[in-house]
């Protein structure tokens, strides 16, 4: 049971706002083949188990797991799909290796969100059907014409029935949470705007990123309110792309001659779905980080962790998450940002990849995007955005609107 688990291969496609040139299978194939080559493994021979992370509704397929074996090299091999963020797949792989059941496991997650034309309604479909969906807009009642009792025509409309379909975009949930976060912690909209400026600037140094921009706080503050206090530039735009990792136990990693990055801690947690009951401070991230810290033997995260990637799909989320995982005290993250502590040469470099604001919202691949950056940093391969002497890194994932679920992974360079 004392096996150590490490990442021995990473692969990814480019990230683009649209990818009409490839289908989702071809996108997955590209990232997987790159990860297998990086790890020096043949998936048909060396990989014992295959994990993908995807949500059926985002993909547009029921039972999506049936569609994945070909393009990840898993035909007639142990294979499963985790319905959640990519980091959950990483945790699943960790357990398979830790228990000794498997030696080499691959994890893939991707976004082909440009294939989905009605993202707003799909996310509203994740709201409670009795208490929440009806207050996001008119509810169209079923049409009964053609049924046995009403063969000819539709009966008269029911109370509340309407043919209108204009509904509120589900991102208003983030606006509500931000409102609460700002008023409770004293963080300002300007500080949140600084997150956008920093991450979009970081994105210039990440060839993966699709939404780099040289902008100032004035640009963010001047962008239109979409879900007050959230403004257009506070929200990460959508992007397509795929990411794959190969994990192995330490001994197999050594036999393969890999440069291992150890997965030393992992945790995950889920909030209650009741919007009125659940906390507004990302308690899921707090619990997940505590579990991961305990496993990795981290007692003082701010001192012991060199580089951090947290979910920043909405600007305030970066600050909220930093506070939730104990890198900053409540209400302190905005100030740390203003003092430059989250910059590359600061005390706790955060979202050097450009984050979701700079790269784009990768949906279920978002946690993997955070982990990808940490692996790249710990390998020393981050070029101009490299954090000097990075030995320990943290990747945090949130499953996005309307969820209160997330995971945290801690990685360490060999010998750390």
């Amino acid at each position, binding site marked *: 049971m004392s096996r150590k688990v490490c990442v021995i291969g990473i692969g990814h496609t480019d990230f683009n706002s649209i990818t009409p040139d490839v*289908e989702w299978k071809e996108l997955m194939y590209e990232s997987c083949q790159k990860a297998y080559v990086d790890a020096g493994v043949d998936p048909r021979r060396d990989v014992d188990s295959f994990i993908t992370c995807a949500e059926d509704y985002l993909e547009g397929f029921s039972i999506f797991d049936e569609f994945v074996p070909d393009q990840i090299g898993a035909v007639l091999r142990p294979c499963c799909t985790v319905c959640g963020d990519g980091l959950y797949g990483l945790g699943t792989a960790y357990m398979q290796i830790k228990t000794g059941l498997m030696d080499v496991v691959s994890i893939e997650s991707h976004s082909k969100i440009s294939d989905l034309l009605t993202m707003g309604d799909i996310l509203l479909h994740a709201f409670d059907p009795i208490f929440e969906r009806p207050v996001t807009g008119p509810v169209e009642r079923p049409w009964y014409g053609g049924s046995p009792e009403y063969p000819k025509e539709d009966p008269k409309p029911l109370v509340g029935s309407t043919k209108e379909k204009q509904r509120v975009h589900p991102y208003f949930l983030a606006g509500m949470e931000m409102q609460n976060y700002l008023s409770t912690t004293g963080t300002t909209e300007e500080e949140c705007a600084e997150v956008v400026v920093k991450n979009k600037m970081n994105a210039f140094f990440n060839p993966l990123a699709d939404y780099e921009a040289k902008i100032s706080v004035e640009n963010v503050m001047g962008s239109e309110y979409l879900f007050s206090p959230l403004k257009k530039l506070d929200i990460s735009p959508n992007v397509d792309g795929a990411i794959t990792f190969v994990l192995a136990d330490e001994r197999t990693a050594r036999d393969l001659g890999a440069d291992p990055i150890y997965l030393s801690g992992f945790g995950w947690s889920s909030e209650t779905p009741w919007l009125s009951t659940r906390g507004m401070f990302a308690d899921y991230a707090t619990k997940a980080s505590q579990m991961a810290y305990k496993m990795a033997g981290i007692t003082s995260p701010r001192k012991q962790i060199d580089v951090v990637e947290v979910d920043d799909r909405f600007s305030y989320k970066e600050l909220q998450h930093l506070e939730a995982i104990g890198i900053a005290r409540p209400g302190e993250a905005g100030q740390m940002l203003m003092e430059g502590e989250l910059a590359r040469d600061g005390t706790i470099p955060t979202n050097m990849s450009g984050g979701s604001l700079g790269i784009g919202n990768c949906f279920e691949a978002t946690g993997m995007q955070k982990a990808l950056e940490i692996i790249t940093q710990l390998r020393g391969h981050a070029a101009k955005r490299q954090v000097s002497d990075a030995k320990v890194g943290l990747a945090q994932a949130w499953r996005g609107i309307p969820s209160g679920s997330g995971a945290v992974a801690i990685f360490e360079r060999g010998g750390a």
Partner: protein
Amino acid sequence: MAKKIEGSPGYAPGTRVSTKDIVENKISYTWWEPEIQYSWSLGQAMSKFLVGLKNGKILGRTCIKCDRVLVPPRMFCEHCYGPTDNWIELKDTGTIETFSISYLDSDARRIKKPILIGVISIDGASPLHGFMHYFGEMTKDEIHIGMKVKAVWKSPREREGAITDIKYFKPLKGGGKK
């Protein structure tokens, strides 16, 4: 526990809820209908395959390493995990691998004329390479595994680059007998 009804998977005899009950607000229920639309990118392999169908051709991809001809074509071989190599045009004939005579629609309502549906291995492709399609110009008594069939195409004007550019597969001349 109520008495089990013969032939029913449930255990709850009683009065069924009718549409009338719903319309007259006699029962409490909730309803929400999402707007769900996708537009999947076809990618490299499927795009070329569908353009082929529009031109009345069935295209495959070869994997030199595994000595296979893949139909429908893919840009990678799921056996060796390498990229596939060349495009190849195949005949529009093949063999019925298996079939089913379907009497119900997707809402479990009986349809008057049963639908003959099955999978076809296309001639010139590797064994078990082909696709699922309708069968026509044959009766439910004539259809059988191993039957040689040929595609019946829509007219060039009607074709739009879809699997339904083939209307159905009919018995190949002399291949209809059991």
